[in-house]
């Protein structure tokens, strides 16, 4: 059964119907914004479309009841990373209107790689979760539960990522040093 079929089969329940329509609307917005992001001819506009995609992902988290993940998504991606990206763009090149030299020579290779990547990830997700269903009465996932699992069973990956980030931080400082 396709996932759209699952959606259709559950539309007897009002709550599920509302949830699904919101999800479909958000998905449509995010796909449109993603397409516009790669086709627009202005760097700042591309960043703004990426912003919409990231916000749409946060909205999906809210629908799934993962409020902590949603808030973190907004805080980290929209509030910090995109601000930094726009900051970099504005410091270097941020002309208004269309730019002509935004295409790269190797864009077809890049397109191929992204299609392959999407196929692999989509297939593995499909294999793992294609007939999984969300529980009916799901409670919003509390921050305590997130903290317990991060500092419980996921403590080793968490520490590994911390060390990785620390290494990246030191690397950035070393690269940026003038002497």
């Amino acid at each position, binding site marked *: 059964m396709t996932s759209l079929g699952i959606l259709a089969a559950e539309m007897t329940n009002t709550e599920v119907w509302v949830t699904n329509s919101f999800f479909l609307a958000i998905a449509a917005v995010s796909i449109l914004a993603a397409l516009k992001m790669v086709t627009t001819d*202005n760097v*700042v*506009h591309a960043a*703004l479309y990426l*912003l919409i995609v990231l916000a749409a992902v946060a909205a999906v988290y809210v629908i799934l009841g993962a*409020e*902590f993940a*949603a*808030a*973190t998504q*907004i*805080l980290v991606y*929209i*509030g*910090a990373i995109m*601000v*930094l990206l*726009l*900051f970099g763009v*504005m*410091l270097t090149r*941020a002309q*208004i*209107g269309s730019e002509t030299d935004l295409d790269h020579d190797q864009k077809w290779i890049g397109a191929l790689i992204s299609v392959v990547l999407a196929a692999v990830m989509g297939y593995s997700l499909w294999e793992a979760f294609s007939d999984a269903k969300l529980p009916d009465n799901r409670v*919003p996932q*509390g*921050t305590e539960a997130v903290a317990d699992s991060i500092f419980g069973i996921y403590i080793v990956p968490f520490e590994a990522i911390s060390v990785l980030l620390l290494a990246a931080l030191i690397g950035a400082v070393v690269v940026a040093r003038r002497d």
Partner: protein
Amino acid sequence: MGGHPFLADGVDFGDVLLSLVMVVAAFVICLVATMLMVWFERKVVSRLQNRIGPNVAGPFGLLQTLADGIKLFFKEDIIPTRSDRFVFQLAPYLSLVPAFLTFTLVPIAGDFSGGNGSSTVFGREFYWQVADVPVGILFFLAMSSLGIYGIMLAGWSSGSKYPLLASVRASAQAISYEAALGLSLASVLLVAGTLSTHDIVLGQAGSLQTLNVVATGFVPFVVFLIAGTAELNRPPFDLVEAEQELVGGFHTEYSSIRFALFFLAEFMNTVTMGAIIVTLFFGGPAPLFDFPFIDFPHAWWMGFILFFAKLLVFLFIFVWFRASLPRLRYDQLMDLGWKLLIPLSLGWLLILGGIRVARDGNIGIVDDSIGDTIIVLVLGGMVLAVGASLIMLANRNARSERLRNEGLVAVANPDLGTSRAADHATTGPPGASHDTAQVGADH
């Protein structure tokens, strides 16, 4: 867990209606408070500068903001030809919406002296805030980081050099101070043990000792106040609209109602930040401590009065900052954020965590809560003293360095040297008070 009690068992039409009423009420309160804040700021700054301030429109000039708003409405709305039209028109709203969204988190009334801060209308138990989000404080941080987009995009889309410079400054400043803001909040969360604003207020009610400003040892509050002022782009951190350097800052090209929206957003942000400080550190609508002789009426409006009294104190402090502190130089701004506030708040979080662990493990003298509070306060005072003396030392070093460098310049160029010396005689060292006169100037 968070959330209004009336939303716990399914949602019906009445619940939706009540939520809508709360949204509208909060919006009106926020707008009126912002209007009064503009008047309050102009009036207080005037008094601090020995002027009278607005006194013509309405009693005490109260209607001055309204008159300004009407005037701005009827001005011509100019969009520069070299601008990015859509983003130019969008930016003011991006600046206004996060300011209001943060206000929806703030409990503005309710009986917290004995009660749990809820009231009942038509059989529905509700809290005096629009939304009690389970991730409340994270939501506040997210919204405060969203607010920067309005300024950034306004500066970029104007198609003009000075606004672009202002927006680059604004984004660097916001990123720097958000870290300090978040780290000082972490101490509050450590003490409160919850992210929901209602539960944070509830946890502070009762005594002076449970008030977060005391329980977290004063250091996070000081860091939060400074970083919050920087986050608001208010003086002395208003490099985004430094008139001497940037014409008018990010809103140079804006006119009419769009300019008014930026103005509104700025003051709404100020009110909201004051409200957040009151909520996080001073117990919001809860009384500061159990007054020994006076028995407060246990009603929701008592919380309302207490909340706005506390809010007024912080709004006055913001205005006071503006009237008395000269604007920081850009390097000073970055040094203060990265070299002082972030290490201070991070180190304090570690100390506070250590004290908590020691208390939980019953180690040594910190096993009762009064002793715990005293130790936290004494340590907090010590840390603040060390921080303050460090920054004074750094300032003195920087000044002597600058004077020494200028001495070298004077030897190389005798003409320049004498004129500099004359400047020194009349105005003191350059940079020490370079824009004191402009800081308090009215908008």
